[in-house]
C-alpha cells in the first residue's frame, strides 16, 4: 500500500488530476491513504471570518501556522469539512470508493500539544511564546484506516489530531503522512508539491539515500527541508521508498515508478 500527501497548492490547482490519478490506481496498489494539506485555504477562510492568520518561524527556519483557539475552529472546519469532502467527492467521481476521516476519528493520530514554543521574531531574535493548538504526532493507531483499506476504500485523511486532553490539534500534514506510512509499513510515501522535486544548488536531485537526504535537508529552504527530512526518516524507519514530486501534472502518481521527482531509498 502507499501513502500520498498533497499540499494545498497542488490540490487547488489540480484536484481533478490528483483524484483521477488516485482513483485509477485504487485497486492495483494494495490500498491508498491520501493525506491532504490546505493551509492556504484555512488562511483564506480565516480572513473571510475576520481572523488574521499568524505564522511563526522556528530557530531552524521552519515556518508554521500559529493556531489560536479561534483559528483552530476555522482549521477544523476547513480541513475536515470543505477540503476533505471535496477530495472524497473528486475521487469518488472517478469511480473509486473513498472515505474521508480526520486524525481525530478512530482516533488515528495522537499528538502532544506544545504548551510553549520557540520562535524567531520579526527582529530575528529567539523568543518563547504560548504554543497554541498545534501538536506533534506521538503515535498512530491504524485500526480504522486498516479496516477501511481492507474494505477497498481509499482513505482520505485531514491533518487534525487528538491531543492528550482530547482537544483537536493542528498537525503538519507531511508529518501525518510520514507517520501513517511508517506505522502501516507502506511500500511508498509520495509527497506531491507544486515543483518537480528537491532542488539543491540549482539542480533537481534524482535518487538519494536517507543519509544524503538528511544532510541536504539541513541546507535547503523552508517547506522542502521538512519534506526531505521526513522522507529520509520514513525510509530509515522501514518505508521502502519516498518520493517528492510534482502534483500539478495530469497524472501525479506516475512518479511512483521513480521516473520523476526526487527519490529517497
Amino acid at each position, binding site marked *: 500500500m502507499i501513502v500520498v500527501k498533497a499540499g494545498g497548492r497542488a490540490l487547488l490547482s489540480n484536484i481533478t488530476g490528483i483524484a483521477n490519478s488516485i482513483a485509477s490506481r485504487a485497486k492495483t496498489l494494495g490500498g491508498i491513504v491520501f493525506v491532504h494539506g490546505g493551509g492556504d485555504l484555512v488562511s483564506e477562510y480565516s480572513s473571510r471570518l475576520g481572523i488574521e492568520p499568524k505564522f511563526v518561524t522556528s530557530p531552524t527556519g521552519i515556518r508554521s501556522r500559529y493556531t489560536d483557539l479561534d483559528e483552530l475552529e476555522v482549521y477544523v472546519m476547513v480541513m475536515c469539512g470543505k477540503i476533505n469532502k471535496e477530495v472524497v467527492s473528486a475521487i469518488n467521481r472517478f469511480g473509486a470508493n473513498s472515505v474521508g476521516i480526520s486524525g481525530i476519528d478512530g482516533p488515528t493520530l495522537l499528538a502532544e500539544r506544545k504548551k510553549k514554543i520557540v520562535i524567531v521574531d520579526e527582529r530575528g531574535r529567539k523568543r*518563547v511564546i504560548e504554543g497554541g493548538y498545534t501538536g506533534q504526532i506521538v503515535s498512530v493507531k491504524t485500526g480504522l484506516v486498516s479496516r477501511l483499506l481492507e474494505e477497498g476504500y481509499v482513505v482520505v485523511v485531514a491533518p487534525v489530531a487528538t491531543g492528550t486532553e482530547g482537544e483537536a490539534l493542528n498537525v503538519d500534514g507531511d508529518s501525518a503522512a510520514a507517520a501513517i506510512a511508517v506505522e502501516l509499513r507502506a511500500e511508498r510515501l509520495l509527497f506531491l508539491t507544486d515543483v518537480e522535486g528537491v532542488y539543491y544548488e540549482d539542480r533537481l536531485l534524482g535518487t538519494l539515500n536517507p543519509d544524503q537526504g538528511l544532510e541536504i535537508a539541513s541546507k535547503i529552504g523552508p517547506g522542502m527541508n521538512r519534506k526531505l527530512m521526513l522522507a529520509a526518516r520514513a525510509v530509515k524507519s522501514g518505508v521502502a521508498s519516498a518520493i517528492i514530486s510534482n502534483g500539478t501534472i495530469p497524472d501525479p502518481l506516475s512518479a511512483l515508478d521513480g521516473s520523476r521527482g526526487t527519490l529517497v531509498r
Partner: protein
Amino acid sequence: MVKLICPLCSSTVEIPDDALDGELFEHDACGAQVEVYVEEGKKKLRLAEGISEDWGE
C-alpha cells in the same frame, strides 16, 4: 544594555534594552540558555526549559 544576573552561574549577563518577555539568550560565560521574564515591571532571567519548535500545518 541591561545587566542581569545569570540564574546558573550568578555572574552578570548583558541583554539588549529592548529585550522582550520570553526572549532567549545564551550566556557566553557559562553556556546557560536563559529566558527573559518580567516580574513587577522588572526584567529578570530564568533558565530556559527544554522547549521544542512548532510543527503545525
